[in-house]
C-alpha cells in the first residue's frame, strides 16, 4: 500500500471513532431533550401567522430570512451555470 492510503485509512478511522462516539451522546432517537423553540412554533403558528402548516410558517415566516438566502443560492447557481456555459467570443 502506498503511504497516502495508509495515512488516509488511519485518519479516517480516528475521525470515524470520534463521530460514532459523539452521536451516542446526542439524545436518543425520538426523544429530543429541549424543545422550547419548536413548541413555541407549533403552539403559535396558527394564531401568529395564520398558517396551518407549521413547516411552511417556519420556512417563510419565523425563518424567512434563511429562505431568502436559499432562493439567493439557487439564483447564484443559475447565474454561475449560465456564466460557465456562456459562449466566448
Amino acid at each position, binding site marked *: 500500500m502506498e503511504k497516502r492510503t495508509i495515512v488516509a485509512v488511519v485518519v479516517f478511522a480516528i475521525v470515524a471513532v470520534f463521530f460514532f462516539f459523539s452521536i451516542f451522546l446526542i439524545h436518543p432517537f425520538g426523544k429530543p431533550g429541549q424543545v422550547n423553540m419548536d413548541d413555541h412554533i407549533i403552539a403559535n403558528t*396558527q394564531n401568529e401567522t395564520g398558517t396551518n402548516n407549521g413547516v411552511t410558517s417556519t420556512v417563510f415566516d419565523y425563518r424567512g*430570512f434563511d429562505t431568502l438566502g436559499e432562493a439567493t443560492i439557487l439564483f447564484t447557481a443559475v447565474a454561475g451555470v449560465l456564466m460557465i456555459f456562456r459562449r466566448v467570443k
Partner: protein
Amino acid sequence: MSGMSKIVKTSVNILFPLTMIFGLYVIAHGHLTPGGGFQGGAIVASGCAMIVVAYGSKWVFKQINEKRLSTFESIGGVGFITVALLGLVFSTVFFGNFLAGSNLLFGTTPATGSTGADFNTGGVLPLMNFAVGVKVIAGLFVIVLVMAYASSVKEWDT
C-alpha cells in the same frame, strides 16, 4: 440530446400537464398541506425536464431561450424580496407578516387546533410561495436546459 421516439413523446404529452397541475397545486396549497414553493417548483421543473428529455434540448431552445427564463427567475426573486420589503413598509420589520390577521387578502386567521383547509389564510406566506415557486421553476429548468444543450453540442466554445 435529440428527440426520442414517438411513444415517449406521447406519454410525456399526457404526463406533462398532470405534473404541471400537481406542482401548481402543491405551490398554491403550501400553507395548508405539505408542500410549498420549493417542492412544487421542483415538481414542475422535473416535468419540464421530462420535456427536455423527450423532445431534445434543441427543440426546447427554439421554444424558449435561457434569457427569458432567467428573466422569469429574476422576477420571482424580486417578487419575493418585494413582499419582504412590503413587510418593512407596513409593519416596520423586514419579513414582517403584515397580512396575517388583517382580514384582507389571505388575511383570515384559522381556528386553533385541527381545522379544515381554508385557502384564505396565511398572510404573506402564499404570496411568498408563489414568488419562490416561479423562481424555482425557472431556475431549475434553466439549469437542466442549459446543461442538456451543452452536453448535446459537441464544440460550443470557440
